[in-house]
């Protein structure tokens, strides 16, 4: 070291001397990362196509909201706050990290850029590094001492991931310390030179180091500076190259995962992108059977999963002890990719996923409620993957025995119960009902403005027929000119499709499409959210579709629907959001507005409501499936209603009604809790000239409730 050299330059002189080493680490780090990422991209190139390069504006908007804006994170207060702080810190520190890294090879960068902006950036990053460091300590303590339940790994899914998590957190903490120490040595050097030790960013990590080092000798500072730099550099590249082997790969992939995320709700991906329905018969194999049958975006999802466990924490199937945990759908597939596409050696592929990493029960356990997708901060998709896996199972004939009969009946009779087509409109044959309301069957002679699409369960199930009659009476009261398709209606096929039987779904859809077009209606109304979602998203070129709750909300607003005071003012009502009305179609307010319009009705919210609503247990074919579970999903839901202090659960879906009414009995809450459909409740409370008509229906409803 030369006498007379400015102290600031002397402190960093070790770096200049070590330039070849630093450069070598740079090259090694960048090359290593490039190689690893290239290897990780191999399966994506062998994957199924998935056109996600459209609508850049909508995608950028998603990035701004969900990636840059961290939109989903505050849903978990502690973890979310930590993540937002770390994310913001990383964004701030990114430029400094690159500056520091390249400072090792460029002396002009070493001494920093003068100016107010640079000074403010210094201060901001000093604090950012400190906050990130503290977050790491906090996260480690949280992982080790508080152990949030959702991070636990059930034995069937392997060992706990705590070790890996701690290792990564510690590495980032080291990175922050090294970075701060490096900044501090430089600053102390500059202070020596200027003779005035005034350090910015009080109480930050670099500031602490500066205070400690202020009296350190120049040789010590020089050594520390080089040591901190090398530690920072090595830790940085180690992290960069290690992340693609675990959950922290999301640091790199998240931006892409969010940009390419699905833009529509309630929609399913086609069996194969780019192949029209009529050519599906020529496709050799349908659905996902091997890893390479996933689309590249779905593989990117696997890489992006951060193992945060929010999906499974909200998954009703997981809560009920079914063999499904969405988190491990991703983790197991990611591990499969890592194992079968190794860093060295050739890729091995083609082994079946179901029977390999997944079990059949796991795949059939999903109710497609969408709670996992609603929660995922990285917008990982699950429903499309589950349906694709089911498509593969169906294609190979691996369908649970209990589902085969209903599927066959759907094929021959158009409903899962095997009932006669001609009896589809028998729910209208009730005498008292016919006095109150006539329902016409649409044909060439009888037209109408509105089609009331009933769907199978509300047509044939004794209990659910009461929902259909209530819906018809409400439509009648509002003054809609409506009719039904009667024997010409088939099951909407919503669950048929979600259970992977695409060919059967297409047959049902085509039949209904033709019947609806022939009816010449201008609008469609349904009281079944599954039918609503099918007609809205699975069918094409349909007249506008509405759920009855939307029609009723409009009636309330326009004054067409007026209610008598609530019949039993001691009742406390709670509204259960059906998944296909709420999460999949964002209809949360309309049913609540209708409820609140009934004078004197007391309503409470369950903790899990709106987009966090907890599925009733699943509709359609799920009613025929016998899952392995510890406790019924519906029973859990009924308990949530009881906890909220309600004694009447109002829902707006016939399948929710089946599950909730059964669950009330299983939970032993009969007599203490009842369930009613929104449209039944409205029908009971409509302000009619003569209240007789409504009253009879209430009585039949009460009988059927107790009679089940």
């Amino acid at each position, binding site marked *: 070291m030369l006498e007379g050299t400015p102290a600031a330059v002397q402190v960093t002189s070790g770096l200049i001397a070590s330039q070849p080493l630093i450069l070598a680490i740079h090259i090694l780090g960048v090359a290593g990362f490039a190689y690893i990422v290239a290897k990780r991209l191999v399966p994506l190139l062998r994957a199924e196509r998935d056109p996600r390069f459209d609508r850049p504006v909508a995608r950028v908007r998603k990035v701004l909201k969900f990636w840059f804006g961290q939109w989903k994170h505050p849903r978990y207060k502690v973890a979310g706050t930590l993540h937002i702080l770390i994310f913001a810190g990383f964004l701030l520190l990114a430029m400094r990290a690159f500056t520091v890294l390249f400072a090792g090879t460029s002396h002009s960068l070493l001494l920093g850029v003068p100016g107010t902006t640079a000074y403010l950036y210094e201060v901001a990053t000093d604090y950012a590094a400190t906050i990130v460091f503290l977050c790491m300590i906090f996260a480690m303590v949280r992982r080790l001492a508080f152990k949030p339940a959702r991070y636990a790994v059930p034995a069937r899914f392997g060992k706990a991931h705590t070790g890996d998590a701690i290792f990564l957190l510690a590495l980032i903490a080291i990175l922050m310390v090294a970075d701060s120490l490096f900044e501090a040595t430089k600053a102390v050097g500059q202070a020596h030179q200027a003779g005035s030790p005034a350090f910015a960013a009080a109480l930050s990590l670099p500031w602490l180091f500066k205070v400690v080092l202020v009296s350190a000798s120049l040789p010590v500072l020089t050594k520390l500076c080089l040591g901190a730099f090398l530690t920072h550099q090595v830790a940085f590249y180690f992290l960069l190259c290690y992340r693609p082997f675990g959950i922290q790969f999301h640091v790199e992939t998240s931006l892409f995962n969010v940009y390419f995320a699905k833009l529509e709700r309630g929609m399913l991906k086609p069996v194969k992108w780019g192949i029209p329905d009529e050519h*599906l*018969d020529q496709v050799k194999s*349908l659905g996902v059977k091997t890893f390479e049958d996933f689309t590249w975006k779905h593989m990117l999802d696997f890489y992006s999963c951060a193992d945060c466990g929010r999906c499974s924490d909200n998954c009703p199937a997981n809560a009920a002890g079914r063999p499904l945990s969405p988190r491990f759908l991703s983790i197991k597939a990611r591990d499969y990719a890592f194992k079968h596409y190794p860093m060295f050696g050739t890729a091995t592929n083609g082994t079946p996923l179901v029977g390999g990493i997944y079990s059949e029960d796991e795949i059939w356990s999903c109710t497609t409620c969408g709670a996992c997708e609603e929660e995922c901060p990285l917008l990982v998709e699950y429903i499309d993957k589950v349906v694709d896996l089911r498509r593969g199972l*169906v*294609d*190979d*004939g*691996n*369908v649970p*025995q209990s*589902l*085969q*009969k209903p*599927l*066959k*009946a759907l*094929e*021959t*009779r158009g409903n899962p119960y*095997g*009932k*006669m087509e*001609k009896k589809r409109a028998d729910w209208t044959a009730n005498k008292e009902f016919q006095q109150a309301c006539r329902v016409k069957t649409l044909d060439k002679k009888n037209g109408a403005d509105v089609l009331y699409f009933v769907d199978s369960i509300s047509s044939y199930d004794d209990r659910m027929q009461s929902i259909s009659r209530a819906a018809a009476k409400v439509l009648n009261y509002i003054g809609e000119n409506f009719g039904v398709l009667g024997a010409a209606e088939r099951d909407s096929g919503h669950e048929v499709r979600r259970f992977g*039987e*695409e*060919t*059967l779904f297409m*047959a049902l859809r085509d039949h209904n499409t033709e019947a609806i077009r022939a009816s010449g209606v201008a609008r469609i109304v349904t009281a079944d959210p599954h039918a609503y979602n099918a007609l809205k998203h699975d069918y094409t070129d349909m007249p506008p579709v509405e759920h009855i709750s939307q029609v009723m909300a409009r009636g309330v607003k326009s004054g067409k629907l007026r209610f008598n005071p609530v019949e039993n003012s001691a009742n406390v009502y709670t509204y259960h959001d059906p998944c296909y009305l709420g999460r999949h179609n964002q209809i949360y307010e309309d049913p609540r507005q209708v409820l609140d319009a009934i004078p004197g009705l007391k309503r409470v919210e369950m903790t899990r409501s709106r987009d966090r609503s907890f599925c009733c247990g699943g509709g359609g074919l799920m009613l025929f499936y016998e899952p392995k579970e510890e406790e019924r999903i519906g029973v859990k839901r009924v308990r949530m209603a009881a906890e909220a202090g309600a004694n009447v659960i109002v829902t707006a879906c016939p399948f929710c009604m089946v599950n909730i009414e059964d669950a009330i009995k299983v939970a032993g809450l009969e007599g203490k809790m009842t369930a009613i459909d929104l449209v039944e409740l409205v029908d009971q409370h409509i302000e009619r000239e003569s209240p007789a008509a409504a009253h009879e229906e209430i009585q039949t409803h009460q009988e059927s409730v107790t009679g089940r």
Partner: protein
Amino acid sequence: MEILVCARRVPDTSENEITLNSAGTDIERDELVYSINEPDNYAVEEALQIVARVGGSVTVVTVGGEDDEEILRREMAMGATHGILLSDTAFEGSDARGIATILKGIVRKSHYDLILTGVQAEAGGAQVGGMLAAMLDYPFASLVNSIEVLEVKKLKVSREIEGGNREINEIDLPCVLSIQTGINEPRYVGMRGIRAVASVAIPNYGAGDLGVDTSRVGAKAAKVKRVDYFVPTLGKGAEMLDGSREENIEKVIELMAAKGGLK
């Protein structure tokens, strides 16, 4: 192993409302939905599983008309190698013995190591398998609920015995077995699978092709003739329990124990 499965198309009991015709000689068949007789479907699945283990082919055969081709296609969609329709105006109205006579024709025409039938069809006769075995002079086992291929010419089969017991038998090939439901879990066949085999030609053999003596089959040769068909009037066997849930449960347990339903 070359396996022949004899199948039949029957009204699907789970998807129909069975009513009698006005003459009272048969059920009203106009709006019925038909499918393969359920035990026959298990027989085909079992044949497919045996062939998957030891090799060979599965042929599904049915006696009937054009409409019955539908079940052959469904079973071919499941994986059966061939389907054969045995159709002739002379076959119409055959009783179980007549059907067995016709089936004997197809067995004699080709070579089969193993012949499977469902345990019974919807009418519950459970006769054709046994009769076919007797006519062929083959060994026969009924109510089979598991099959193990021991060596080239021998099987180990398990039979369901009253009360849920099982017996294990060795049986020489060729033989006829009637298959009980529950022996396996038949695979699912969707519309797509059926469409894939829609254009496969299905051979149609008549009495001449099979060397069947027409005087021994058909309505005239039938020695069993149905003379009546009715739904028994409901007796007074039903007792309605109208107590509270706990009382009803106790009563049910008591009744079941009294009738020997609970041990």
